[in-house]
């Protein structure tokens, strides 16, 4: 009787372990395949040149630049608003009902499908406010989309600042704002930076929200103002892989662009996660 239970345990644990490792293998296979297939496309020219020959050759410089501009624009929107929201919820808010409703709003915002953000951006920024398909409209849409990520990370970071720090500051006669500005925020900085990195990664990788608000299939020049439309890495992959007459011919460019996008997103995310990891270890 006892032995039967032990055998079942052994089998169950082996299955669970195998399933868990399956996912690691799949990830390695996927990334490995893309890197192997696209490695040959990478060169200095790929990063610095404009697309040539009706997108069949040349580089992806404008797409890289466009993605950076969109990231920057969305950060300008989401970072201040996100941090302030988190500070309000964690440091100022007294009414638990208000906090609960705002939290519910944040959770629901985080759950809105990305294509619905695209529709929202199209109707409000592109059409109603008449920004057109532009960096401005795309940045605002992405900024709104990445807001919940910054709020959550900042809140988590604020929670790790010990209450005694605040009490010590307040007992010295500092106001709450002085305490937040001089004591709480500096101590929460690594965690806040985690949120910033994660949200930048999200903005860089999203496609559906910029499809109707910012992205262009091909822009002959680099953007001149915030009202220009831009090329962007994720949209570039999508367009090359699905539209036009040269899908097979541009395969290596698609793989190459995918590598650049993955590298960018992974770099941002790992920086964020390492910061978070170090913050957590420091607290232990």
């Amino acid at each position, binding site marked *: 009787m006892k032995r039967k239970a032990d055998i079942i345990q052994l089998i169950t644990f082996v299955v669970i372990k195998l399933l*868990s490792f399956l996912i690691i293998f799949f990830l390695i296979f996927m990334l490995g395949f893309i890197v192997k297939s696209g490695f040959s496309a990478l060169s200095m020219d790929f990063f610095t040149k404009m697309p040539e020959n009706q997108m069949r050759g040349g580089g992806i410089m404008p797409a890289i630049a466009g993605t950076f501009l969109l990231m920057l624009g969305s950060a300008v929107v989401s970072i201040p608003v996100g941090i302030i929201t988190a500070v309000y919820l964690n440091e100022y808010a007294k009414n638990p009902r208000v906090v609960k409703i705002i939290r519910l709003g944040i959770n629901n915002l985080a*759950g809105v499908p990305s294509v619905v953000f695209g529709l929202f951006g199209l109707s409000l920024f592109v059409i109603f406010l008449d920004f057109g398909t532009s960096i401005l409209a795309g940045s605002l849409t992405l900024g709104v989309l990445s807001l919940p990520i910054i709020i959550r990370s900042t809140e988590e970071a604020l929670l790790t600042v010990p209450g005694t720090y605040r009490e010590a500051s307040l007992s010295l006669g500092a106001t709450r704002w002085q305490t937040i500005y001089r004591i709480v925020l500096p101590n929460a900085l690594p965690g806040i930076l985690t949120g910033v990195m994660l949200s930048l990664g999200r903005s860089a990788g999203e*496609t559906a929200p910029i*499809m109707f608000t910012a992205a262009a299939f091909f822009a002959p020049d680099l953007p001149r103002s915030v009202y220009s439309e831009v090329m962007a890495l994720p949209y570039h992959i999508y367009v090359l892989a699905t539209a036009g007459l040269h899908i097979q011919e541009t395969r290596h460019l698609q793989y190459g662009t995918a590598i650049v996008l993955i590298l960018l997103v992974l770099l941002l995310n790992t920086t964020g996660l390492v910061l978070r990891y170090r913050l957590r270890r420091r607290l232990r």
Partner: protein
Amino acid sequence: MKVHKSIVYDYLVEKLFFIIGLSCLVILFLIMFFLFKEGLPLLNKVSISDFIFGMEWYPTSDNPRFGVFPLISASVAVTLIASLMAVPLSIAIAVYMAELASPITREIIKPVIEIIASIPSVVIGFFGMVVVAPFLQSYFDLDTGLNLFNAALMLGFMAIPTIASISEDAISSVPVSLKEASYALGANRCQTIIFVTVPAALSGIWTAIILGVSRVIGETMVVLMVAGGAAMMPGSLFSPVRPLTSNIAAEMAETPVGSTHYHALFAIGILLFIITFVFNIIADYLSNKYKFKHN
């Protein structure tokens, strides 16, 4: 009596932060407002039941029809199959991370999960197109590898981080005393996990599943690239389909602003918004209930 300047300042900052803190609610409201503003005019042309239960989606023909039932069915089918694959796998990973893995293995698997969560969906869709589709096509001898199964496979993969990491939180927050009681009664680790730990974490696991499913329903790029795009009822596991999200993404660029077609795409947006909103409310309710249990 003279009030110190910094106290006035403090008061003003608090009020300002409160107003900015409401921005998420304002944005949520604006999203709803603009979806309804652009989506509801459809009802002047098409009735709600013709829209939701209509079997034909021919938005650009001379006699346009805006029935989204095939698209809804496609979304449901893709989501269901993706969940069938992702849920057991995610729970296995969660159990492994929370209960079985050594600290070192855990430090390996956790970042792997976070990396999967961070891969842009367009990359996963791309992988589905160029690697999985040709494989499926030749292995199962199909007309096209871009189909329901391929989309479900890719989406299932994408849902794993959400479900696994939230489930893991739930499982590791089960009090040790419950497990000790189980051991004391003579149960081994496996029995304890199956009959004590997992059931105790069940509401948290449900929260995880609901959030994961809600992400799958709303995911756009993957289904746009690999689901095949045929606006028909899904006939088999390998038929090409066109879920709600991909339909918006595929057609919005060519649709004249203000046309019935344009309004219909926003109406689909309303459907998606309502579906994910309900899922999120349920998840929120469950997770609050579950937090309460531990206090």
